[in-house]
């Protein structure tokens, strides 16, 4: 038995444990941990607080309509989830001042405080989310940081990120972090120990990424957050010419010994929801595994991945993901090949690369952009294409208010710079509306 087969057979054994644990209670203390070269251990699964559990079944439309005055976030559920995650060894919690209409940080602060764990038991990541021009000045950035500390009930941040550099092009990046001195100030904060690690999350314009890489000597990035999953690994550029393939990003960062934090491992659920094209490729290899498990295992296979962030809005997701990562079984070459085939099958469906992150929202004209785009994808990924009447019913169900339908788009384009996936939103909405109109007319012509 050579070394390779030994490792392989060892993984098979681990895999059997993981499969068992996915169906029952996960054993505590089995979570895969990754070494942070800057010190400390990080759980391979991290909690992304971009999509928190909401009251009323999760659809924000419901609570807007029902007139809830609060944030709509189900704090009790969040408390329980965070407790469960900490109990099972998850110690990385990622949030931002912009998430969940600005409610995410405070809710996470509350949940972490209520968990009963000490501050040193978990890591908090938050961001400098100065997206609006009025937030560019350094004073406002400082204000944002202090507010983050207050909301999160702490006096230091473990991982602080420049949020979504590259969104809106290099010029915006420069205005947000360079011209106003925000980046230098962040470096000072790190020196002062108020933040432990400094990094950035990257979407879009490669120029911003390259600039950061070129200035690694100066700023010494402690980590970098990138979008990585088995579709973006080789096909991000194919989906949108402005993006960079995750493989390139990963290898570039690994060469500079910068640990990688992964976002969108499930593409906002697109790789987790049932999809015939994906299931067809992956099921034969492991009929019991869920699609989400495949996507998480893909990311965990790469050793320089420090943690994988997943937004787990439901208890089932939390339990399943914890099970998959306790411990995580890396993918074999054969499995990686199958995942690549699945990625190609997904691309053939021509879905819109929307991950329902809601960065585009609120639309000034009240449209429910992510719901419209997700609805379109839902129709495309169904095994049998639904009938005209079914599609129209699905549409009415997905966006119950007519005034939020695609046809009310004015084409103002204010959503476009916010989209981390660089989707031309008005164009897609016009396409969807034309399609819906055709269906309506078809239905009326009977």
């Amino acid at each position, binding site marked *: 038995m050579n070394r390779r087969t030994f490792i392989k057979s060892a993984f098979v054994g681990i895999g059997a444990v993981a499969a068992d644990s996915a169906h029952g209670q996960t054993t505590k203390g089995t979570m895969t941990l990754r070494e942070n070269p800057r010190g400390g251990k990080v759980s391979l699964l991290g909690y992304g607080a*971009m999509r928190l559990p909401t009251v009323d079944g999760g659809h*924000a*439309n419901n609570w*807007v309509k029902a007139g809830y005055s609060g944030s709509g976030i189900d704090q009790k559920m969040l408390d329980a989830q965070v407790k469960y995650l900490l109990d099972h060894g998850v110690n990385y919690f990622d949030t931002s*001042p*912009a*998430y*969940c*209409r*600005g409610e995410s940080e405070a809710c996470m602060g509350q949940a972490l405080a209520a968990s009963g764990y000490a501050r040193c038991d978990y890591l908090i990541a938050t961001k400098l*989310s100065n*997206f*609006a*021009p*009025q*937030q560019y000045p350094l004073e406002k950035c400082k204000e944002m940081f202090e507010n983050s500390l207050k909301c999160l009930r702490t006096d230091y941040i473990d991982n602080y990120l420049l949020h979504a550099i590259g969104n809106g092009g290099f010029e915006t990046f420069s205005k947000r972090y360079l011209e106003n001195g925000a980046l230098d100030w962040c470096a000072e904060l790190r020196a002062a120990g108020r933040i432990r690690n400094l990094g950035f999350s990257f979407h879009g314009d490669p120029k911003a990424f390259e600039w950061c890489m070129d200035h690694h000597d100066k700023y010494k990035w402690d980590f970098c957050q990138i979008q990585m999953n088995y579709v973006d690994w080789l096909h991000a550029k194919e989906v949108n010419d402005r993006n960079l393939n995750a493989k390139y990003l990963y290898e570039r960062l690994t060469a500079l010994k910068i640990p990688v934090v992964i976002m969108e491992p499930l593409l906002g659920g697109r790789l987790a929801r049932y999809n015939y094209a994906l299931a067809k490729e992956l099921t034969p290899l492991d009929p019991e595994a869920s699609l989400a498990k495949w996507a998480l295992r893909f990311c965990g296979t790469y050793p320089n991945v420090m943690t994988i962030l997943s937004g787990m809005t439901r208890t089932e997701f939390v339990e399943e993901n914890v099970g998959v990562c306790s411990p995580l079984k890396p993918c074999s070459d054969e499995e990686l090949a199958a995942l690549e085939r699945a990625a190609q099958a997904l691309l053939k469906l021509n879905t819109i690369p929307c991950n329902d*992150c*809601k*960065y585009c*929202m*609120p*639309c*000034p*004209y*009240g449209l*429910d952009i992510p719901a419209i785009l997700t609805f379109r994808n839902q129709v495309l990924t169904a095994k049998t294409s639904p009938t005209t009447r079914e599609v129209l019913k699905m549409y009415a169900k997905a966006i119950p*208010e*007519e*005034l*939020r339908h695609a*046809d*009310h*788009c*004015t*084409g*103002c*384009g*204010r959503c476009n710079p*916010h989209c981390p996936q660089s989707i031309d939103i008005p164009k897609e909405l*016009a396409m969807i*509306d034309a399609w819906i*109109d*055709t269906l*309506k*007319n*078809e*239905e*009326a*012509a*009977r």
Partner: protein
Amino acid sequence: MKAKKILKALVAAAMLTAVTAAFFGAPTSLACRIQPAATVTFLVVLLLTPFAGRLFCECFCPLGIIQSFVNWIFHSKTKVRRVCTRLPESRQQRIVRWTSLVVAGVLIGSGLGAIGWLLTPYSIYGKALTLFVPGVAIFALVVALAAIGKGRIWCNWICPVGTLFNILSKKCVCAHKVGPGCSNCKACFTSMSTPKSQNHQTTEPSNHQTSFTRRDTLKGMTALAAAEAVEKTTDGGYASVSLPGVPTRPAQVLPPGSVDRREFNIKCVACGLCIANCRGGCLKPSVSLKRLGQPEMDFRHGYCLSGCAQQCAKVCPAGAIRLLDGVARKDIHAGHAIWKRDLCIRETEDVECTACSRKCPVDAIHIVEGFPVIDKGACIGCGACEHVCPARPMPAIFVKGFDSQRVVRPFNEKDLVAEMVSLLSRGEASCVSAKDGVIVGKATGKGISPLFGLLSEGKLTHALVADKVIGRAAAAICIVGNAKKVHALLMGADALTLLKTHGVEASAEKTVPKILNRDLTDGCPMEQTVDGIDDPAEMVKALKSRLGI
């Protein structure tokens, strides 16, 4: 007797089901045509009335059937004749009945028809089903009266249609006769209720109460602009949206295919069938006193679908909305859009907006230098632009309805070919060409010379050409002349192939393998000239030299 009763009950149940189904998207032509304003079936019922009594009220009128049913539930034990045939009537009853008939007649005759129709059963039932408030109220009243009183009070006291049928059935042969034992106690038709039946006053359909959302929304509507133009700082959430107001139109938009507006107001019985069957969700009952309950367009919740098979016209029982043969919704100009600069967000908020232009199904709105320019000749008044306009509280673009709708009949090639063929067979021409649906060239003469004539005049270019006989020679001329389609009374099979290989459509009344000469003794001399040549240009050259042109 029992069999007759059961038969009537069955017919009644079938009719009620059919009429109700028509309101839920299953247009049954019988159900639509039985309505008082409409025609053949109604005439049959009318003719039967003198013999069979008030057959209409018992078996065909939804309101009558429902009242019988309510009666049966509440007074099943009481031996009361529930069916309104010839029973002794009190003086008051007669006065009320006749007044009601006269009032309805005068209202309908005087142009206030919409209110007059409010007394007729189909109109009431339709309005109740489409949840139009006055209709629901009257319907509830009718049902309540039937529940409280013995007998069908509405039919016997108020309904003008019932009164009409009463006159007709005066000498009815199978009418219920009052027996000799009658003491004229009038217990069988008095509407005074017994204490027992008073306990049953809760029959009012309560689900109707919840359905006035439109009105509620109207009330609760605030003058909020949809565009708040707040600079986004956090992710997610929704900007508030509000329904636009209803613009004060110079004229309401009638359903597509409607007759002239004045005629429409008289003809429409406001039964609500079109409203219930509107696929675009834009037909709503009017609340104006003169047109109460009659359909008009309200684009806040939808717009008239340009590809609709005119469901409203299909179900109209009164002939107020016509189903025009061979005309699509796109060909009917029901109104046109008007743009108000001071309301447009382009002016009020200084932002680019292309919503109306993008939504227009007939490309009638063009954005020129940021402003929408409406091509009123192309606009069909569907209201899609008004529906999507983001301006609040009033849409900046709205539709004005035409008094007399314009139908632009599409060019129909089949009819045109038939016209050309008749010209040929009557001998008025031996060769005809048409462009864009209009005949542009006619030529007489023998052989292929008329075709040469049209070619030299340039009348074959992109044209539909019809000729008596088309052989390879004539086909070559058509190809050289760049014709779009060739139709012949008689066509050679080889000519057909030649035309098709050169991308020209071809059809013929009759196809033969080969074109012969006039005496049918040998091949046509022109055909022989082009025999063995495949290039049409060469063929035309050969023909020209043969004919000496």
